[in-house]
């Protein structure tokens, strides 16, 4: 009869600042902004390529400017964080059972890194590096 359950207020805007794991999560989520931005840069590059040498050279100059380099370094850092954090949780989304036992997560993650390295090498060869 005298119950009065108390509901603690929820910090709806700042909740992600209250715990380390929440902040790291938000950074992970924020990486998509930079990856999206980088994708946009690439698409613009393709567009400029189609518009002819002058346009493309102007694009390259922008990309190679100090601000452009800085952007690319930051975007690369975020992309790496995005990729590695997703690799690390892949075993959770894709558990494998072999011979009655679970395949260790490390093997699955390792396979991703190897696959990434192989694809990277192939791409580098293709672009004549």
């Amino acid at each position, binding site marked *: 009869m005298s119950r009065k359950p108390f509901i603690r207020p929820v910090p709806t805007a700042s909740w992600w600042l209250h715990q380390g794991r929440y902040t790291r*999560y938000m950074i992970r989520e924020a990486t998509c902004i930079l990856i999206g931005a980088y994708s946009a840069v690439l698409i613009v590059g393709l567009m400029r390529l189609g518009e002819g040498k002058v346009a493309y050279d102007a694009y390259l100059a922008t990309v190679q400017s100090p601000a452009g380099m800085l952007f690319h370094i930051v975007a690369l850092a975020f992309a790496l964080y995005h990729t590695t954090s997703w690799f690390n949780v892949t075993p959770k989304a894709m*558990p494998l059972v072999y011979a009655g036992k679970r395949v260790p997560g490390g093997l699955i993650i390792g396979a991703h890194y190897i696959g990434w390295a192989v694809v990277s090498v192939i791409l580098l060869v293709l672009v004549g590096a």
Partner: protein
Amino acid sequence: MNADTDIKTRIIEIEILRYNPETDIEPAFQTYEVPCHEDWVVLDAVNYIKDEIDRTLSYRWSCHMAVCGSCGMMVNGEPTLSCHSFLRDHPDKLRIEPLANFPIERDLVVVMDDFIDKLKSVKPYIVPREKRSIDDGTHTQMPAELAKFKQYTLCINCTLCYAACPQYMLNEGFVGPAALALAHRYNLDSRDVGASAREDVVASNPGVWECSFVGACSDVCPHDVDPASAIQQAKIAGVLDYFKSFLMPKGEAKQ
């Protein structure tokens, strides 16, 4: 037989968030100085407070071996089983609060109704392929088949995962980690064909799709159930079932 004198003790200052709905407008901290043995867990200190200092402190506990799930509390901001949180890992100050994201009934006792409702809503029981009599004996279940879902059977319903989950904090309609992991446990059990019966709740917006894979639930789970993994797998299964239902509209495709 009592040789407790040989065990080192230290004074720990413990502040506990108290709330008595009959007298308090809102919760407030109360501090206790507790002489603690070095091999105690947080629960031992709380029991000491109740037995020796303040009989009015209310909290839940029973097994003292991390298997009944009663004693969940926030210890220094982290959802914890107080019977499995060793004082040797803590400094001389502890802050104890009731589990986050649940209404406070009294002191460290939270209202569990929403969790129980969510647990029930996922139909957490075997929906058998065919009626089987006792004389037919047990199902054959290979060790590999058991290994697929065994991890998800380990949930002790302590609800630390609900206290850790920011989606549950922001949206109380979210079915939540433990309930979804339990649904997944049954979906993976070779003896069960109830996945489609659970779909409405599991593969819904307040079900797995409310989860954005923060992973806090799996971080705090005391028994490595890894509910986050269950939810991501359930998402994949839900998507596959959705496409299958286009390709094979008549068949009940169990994933």
